[in-house]
């Protein structure tokens, strides 16, 4: 058995395809994620210069001007406001000395010089003011007696809501990407499993045929392939976790042993899925790779790899998918450890994963062990 395992490990470590997808690709993707939005909280926004042009001498115009000045005075230093006439304002906009012009008239409006973050901020400010004004008008129409209180509240407006998880830890929307990424890496163990099946089933390769006519028991061959595949892929995922934690410095609040446990079960799912799909179908190698890639990518997508809100969308519309999608279960287990502090949900996700990988592993054993071939 050790003889088999020694060479199985050697073969896998020297096989570029077996290492690229399960190890290199997730590391590269993690690096891209990190530079794309992993450090978004640290981004340093510069104060946006803005010009105000008073078009009318009315109460509405005065209120809007006051609103902008109060934003300017805020500690966040979101904008700086300068009063100008129309001509000066246009010149400042052209010379890029201002990101936009607010027109304070009966109906406040905004002119910007292009599309970007600064312009979006100015647009948001205008929308925020419009919403506030609309609210006041509604209150005045329906509850005129409360208008004084409403004005007071608006003047004391401040950010009262901060996003905090049930477990008391701050939720970071970007963390979802990285949990889905780890889930994807676990799922990519299917490529190692696929490679193993190729050397086990005589109808797939000549190499497998040669192994099948030796006196070494088929179960030994299967066991050696599975153990080495699980082992190697588990190390792949540990490398990814270490890279995320120590190189990209991502915060994982949960305990490492629990994270490793989830990763281990995730690896079992990935590898056994690869072996099962490869061995249970007589389709060509290319088609099987496409199937494996398709399944792992769709599962990862639904788990929030490309869009952090996707898992919530699935939860609202078809929650059963989140209960059986291995990538969603893996990422959910990570969330339970790091964010929710919900041991019950964690155990449920983990148990589902264990059952799924056990079914796939036993299925693979049965398919490969009993197989005799219709064509070689």
């Amino acid at each position, binding site marked *: 058995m050790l003889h088999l395992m020694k060479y199985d490990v050697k073969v*896998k470590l*020297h096989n570029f395809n077996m290492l690229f997808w399960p190890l290199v690709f997730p590391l590269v993707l993690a690096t891209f994620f990190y530079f794309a939005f992993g450090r978004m909280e640290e981004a340093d926004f510069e104060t946006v210069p803005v010009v105000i042009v008073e078009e009318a001498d009315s109460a509405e115009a005065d209120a809007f001007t006051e609103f902008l000045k109060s934003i300017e005075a805020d500690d966040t230093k979101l904008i700086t406001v300068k009063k100008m006439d129309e001509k000066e304002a246009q010149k400042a906009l052209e010379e890029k000395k201002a990101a936009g012009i607010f027109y304070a008239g009966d109906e406040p409006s905004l002119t910007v010089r292009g599309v970007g973050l600064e312009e979006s901020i100015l647009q948001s400010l205008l929308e925020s003011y419009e919403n506030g004004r609309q609210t006041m008008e509604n209150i005045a129409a329906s509850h005129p007696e409360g208008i004084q209180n409403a004005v007071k509240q608006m003047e004391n407006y401040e950010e009262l809501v901060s996003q905090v998880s049930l477990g008391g830890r701050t939720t970071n929307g970007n963390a979802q990407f990285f949990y889905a990424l780890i889930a994807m890496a676990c799922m990519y163990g299917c490529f190692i499993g696929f490679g193993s099946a190729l050397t086990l089933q005589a109808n797939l390769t000549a190499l497998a045929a*040669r192994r099948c*006519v*030796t*006196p070494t028991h088929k179960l030994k061959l299967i066991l050696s392939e599975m153990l080495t595949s699980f082992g190697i892929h588990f190390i792949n995922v540990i490398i990814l976790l270490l890279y995320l934690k120590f190189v990209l410095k991502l915060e994982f609040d949960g305990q490492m042993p629990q994270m490793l446990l989830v990763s281990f079960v995730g690896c079992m799912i990935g590898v056994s899925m690869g072996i099962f799909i490869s061995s249970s179908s007589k389709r060509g190698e290319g088609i099987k790779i496409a199937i494996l890639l398709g399944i792992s990518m769709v599962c990862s997508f639904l788990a929030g790899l490309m869009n952090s809100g996707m898992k919530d969308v699935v939860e609202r519309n078809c929650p059963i998918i989140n209960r059986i999608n291995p990538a969603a279960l893996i990422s959910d287990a990570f969330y339970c450890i790091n964010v929710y502090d919900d041991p019950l949900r964690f155990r449920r996700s983990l148990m589902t994963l264990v059952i799924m990988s056990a079914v796939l592993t036993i299925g693979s054993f049965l398919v490969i062990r009993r197989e005799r071939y219709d064509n070689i």
Partner: protein
Amino acid sequence: MIKIENLVKRYGNLVALDHLNLEIEEGEIFGLLGPNGSGKTTAISCMLALLKYDKGKVTIFGEEMKPDSYKIKQQIGIVLQNVAVFDELTVYENIDYFCGLYVKEKAKRKKLVEEAVQFVGLEEYIKMRPKKLSGGLLRRLNIACGIAHRPRLIIMDEPTVAVDPQSRNRILEGIKELNRQGSTIIYTSHYMEEVEQICTRIAIMDHGRSIASGTKEELKSMIKTGETVTIEAVAIEEAQIREIRQLPHVFDVRYDEQVLTVRCTGAKHNLIRILNYLQENAVSFGRVFSELPTLNDVFLEITGTELRD
């Protein structure tokens, strides 16, 4: 040693093996000769229990061969048509890996692997990976992986496909040497020259059946052809061809693209008689060949098609 009885294998409507019967004795180099698609590889796969068959029985060393006949498998070595080695392992590691599937004892295995390396002449390449080897060296590695454990029975399925003449000769000599050392060999090929060169007994296969079997001499004696005379001749008329066909001992005459092929039964002076006729009738001719019957002639006479078709 090996008995194949009434073996039938169908792929849908296609009958790959049609009641195949073979018996192979210990110590033989048994050749399975037939064109591509004649059922040689299917027969080997059924023999090794790699392939389900519809009917029949395969007995090896007196026991029925099944997928879990590990005792029988222990004594068999196979060299498949397609090279079956790990690209990721070196030459030495590949041989060691496959030998290790048969021989557990490390010291014994080391000795066997070294002997196998020496046997196929790969001493200089033991640290190289298969992708760096030429086609011939790769075939030799393929053979070494199949024979390192010193099997009692070696099954070789077209081991010389796409091999240069030098490597081919080395491989064929190696097979004879393995036989001398005590292994029984089953050798499949569609190259009749190879089979004639090394095999002690031959079965000719076509459409999944064994159409003839015996030693090469026995096979050749089964047919009418004793000599084939081939002459490059210009403008022979149809009437002249009919007259040649009437010459003593001639039983088949063909004239195609200015090449006259005359098949005669085994008798003396066939060539002289034909050349005399051409001279007397003022037929110009160039090169002349006279050949004794080959296995191709055997195949041709029995099936009506060339072995190389």
